[in-house]
């Protein structure tokens, strides 16, 4: 019994190590800060290990963990008090405390989206944070993690039609939010 359990931990650890970057990436983009990301991952790993006997070897471990992470994340959001969401349209406080307009990046003159994403990481994360949690989950899984609609549907536990509409509305909201920063 003990040997079997030890073996289970070894297998679990190996799979976590293999997929740790994807797990961290999704958790971080869902939470938006390091502390909550760490909490979400640790809770998810504990839940995952508890259910590890139900994981089918040969299937995608990261997709399986995302499904558990989704539940942990949504449950956590429901338990947390509502937070105030800052409008991206508002100015940012300057050194003297006065509000100043945000810096706007002209995407037309710099078409490298990757460079843009790196420059705008913080505003993009704030725009993601402003999305309803279920939309954020779908956008993160589809656009950041590159899952197919079918995989997102399974991880987010919703029909493919819902994935499609959430993704569309999520991207549309992001587009509007980021207009303050990016001139398309």
């Amino acid at each position, binding site marked *: 019994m003990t040997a079997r359990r030890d073996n289970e931990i070894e297998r679990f650890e190996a799979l976590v*190590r293999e997929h740790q970057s994807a797990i961290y990436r999704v958790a*971080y*983009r869902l939470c938006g800060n390091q502390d909550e990301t*760490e909490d979400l991952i640790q809770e998810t790993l504990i839940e995952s*290990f508890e259910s590890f006997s139900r994981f089918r070897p040969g299937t995608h471990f990261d997709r399986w963990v995302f499904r558990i992470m989704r539940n942990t994340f949504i449950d956590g959001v429901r338990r947390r008090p509502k937070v105030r969401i800052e409008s991206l349209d508002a100015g940012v406080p300057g050194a003297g405390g006065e509000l100043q307009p945000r810096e706007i990046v002209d995407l037309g003159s710099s078409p490298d989206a990757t460079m843009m*994403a790196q420059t705008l990481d913080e505003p*993009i994360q704030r725009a993601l944070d402003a999305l309803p949690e279920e939309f954020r989950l779908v956008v993160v899984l589809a656009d950041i993690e590159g899952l197919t*609609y079918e995989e997102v549907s399974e991880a987010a536990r919703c029909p493919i039609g819902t994935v499609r509409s959430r993704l*569309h509305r999520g991207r549309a909201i992001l587009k509007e939010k980021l207009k303050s920063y990016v001139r*398309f």
Partner: protein
Amino acid sequence: MKCERCNLRLTAYLDGKLNARETRELSEHMANCRRCSEDLREFEQIRAILKGLPAPAPRPGFWDDSIRAVRMLAVQKRRMRRLDFRYASGLAAAIGIVAVLLSFPHGTDRVPLPLPETAINPASLVSLYARERGRSPLADVGKLRFASSQAEAADIEDNGRLDVQ
């Protein structure tokens, strides 16, 4: 196709999730609609920006700590299972002991009187039964009648105290 209908399908169009007929309709509409083709380009840019987001880095040692936490949990659970088994065994033993104790007769009125195994003296037997007024377990009518007859034979005059029906 109207712009509103086209706009709702732009994401699916971009991701190649529309059927051939819908794809053709949207392509035709956008060829003649600057606004919708601009929208499509913006959606495409948003998707590209999200895809290009830098990978966030965890603090050093985060994964080691997380794995250690899972290992500790596994060990704790194993200990808990062992404790549960011990508690269950102890509880079962305690219940058994209580059950055995409860199965014994208790209270003074239920303690059986000591009975002579052999060489019953009929006179003492009858007087004993009479004294106990039928409360003793010597309720063997045949035996008592026999004892009674023996007592009579022994010419014992104690009829007033004998209570055998």
